[in-house]
């Protein structure tokens, strides 16, 4: 290990980590929004939209992010839709993640038995109360492990955005290896950077799962 390399180029990785976190953060937020919408459509069985949502979910789950990104970044401008690299990356992550989030959230809502709804009704709870006090806590309890797993999955998937010229962690690693041949040091910094980003999220996820696991507490 060449420690002077680490101290000299460590800051590059800090900046790159910001980029990875920035892209993933907005990608995850949008993915959850898309997922909620799709899950609502699926649970509510809204006629025509339901089919469109199903088609979207199948398309998004069965194609790789890299191909989706290439299509968005190189393909769409030919139709006059020009997105910047970060916009492409965020839209791509949202397109991919939306379907995964939708499946996790839908699973949560569908796991709440009908009895719960009926009992809440009998107890005289209003619809809003039923949703916020009865349905949502139980749905979240089932959905949280899936949602957390999806967040980690999306952050990992964001590593391919280097292919559309975003200076994320992978991009900086490749750049430094190419420029200085300090392969070891760059790869070690790469691993550490991803561990620093992902480990806390993984731990927070486990804590959240325990916190919201009403059935077992």
């Amino acid at each position: 290990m060449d420690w002077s390399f680490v101290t000299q180029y460590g800051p590059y990785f800090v900046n790159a980590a910001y980029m990875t976190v920035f892209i993933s953060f907005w990608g995850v937020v949008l993915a959850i929004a898309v997922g909620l919408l799709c899950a609502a459509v699926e649970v509510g069985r809204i006629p025509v939209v339901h089919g469109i949502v199903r088609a979207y979910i199948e398309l998004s789950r069965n194609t790789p992010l890299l191909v989706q990104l290439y299509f968005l970044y190189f393909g769409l401008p030919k139709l006059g839709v020009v997105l910047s690299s970060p916009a492409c990356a965020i839209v791509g992550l949202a397109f991919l993640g939306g379907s995964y989030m939708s499946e996790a959230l839908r699973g949560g809502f569908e796991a709440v038995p009908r009895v719960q709804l009926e009992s809440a009704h009998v107890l005289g709870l209003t619809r809003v109360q039923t949703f916020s006090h009865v349905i949502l806590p139980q749905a979240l309890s089932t959905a949280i492990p899936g949602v957390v797993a999806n967040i980690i999955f999306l952050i990992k998937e964001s590593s391919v955005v280097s292919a559309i010229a975003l200076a994320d962690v992978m991009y900086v690693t490749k750049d430094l290896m190419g420029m200085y041949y300090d392969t070891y040091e760059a790869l070690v910094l790469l691993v550490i950077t991803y561990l620093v980003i992902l480990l806390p999220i993984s731990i927070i996820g486990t804590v959240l799962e325990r916190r919201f696991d009403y059935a077992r507490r």
Partner: protein
Amino acid sequence: MQGAEILLQPGVWPRLFQGLWVTIWIAGVSVLLSIPVGLAVGWLMTLRNPIVRFIMRLYLDFIRIMPQLALLFIVFYGFARAWNLNLDATSSSLLVFVLWGGAELGDLVRGALESIPRSQYESSYVLGLSSWQTFTRVILPQAIRRMLPASVNLATRIVKTTSLVVLLGVVEVIKVGQQIIDANRFQFPTGTLWIYGVIFFMYFFVCWPLSIVARRLEKRWAHD
């Protein structure tokens, strides 16, 4: 629909399918090699030996938390530097996918094996089955049912992840697409849209049937 004529150029489809074949070949070989690795890893994970458990835990967690692209970089660039082991891009990707697929499959095997109730072992013992018979006739059939849907899903994930090998320089379907786009840059400037569109659907039509199979299996065996 301007530029769609690029798809009618001679050689475009055969070349794309050749590229797709490379993708499928890498994914298929990875899946096949992952099966024995996964079985071994799964078996090791059920052992009570604390050292083995710790090592397997570390292996699984490291593989799980690193992005696959990072793993590819580590093997492709790192191994060459560390041990002067110059794997070409295809072998590096195979190695990574087998290590990754083996770890994921191993965890499925472990889960399936641990989900078999003790009574199954005890009943087989009482019935006079040998431990080999117990494993092959009683435990394995039940374990396979429990892990097969998730394993088929894992196969689609491996196919999708195969797209990353283009970033190491393997000439597969995406690279072939880029070559076609570049070769026709002046004649069909809007061909990009069509070629990437076709590649998108090629991946879709490889993975979608697998997803359907996984879902069917899940439904059929959900209550066994």
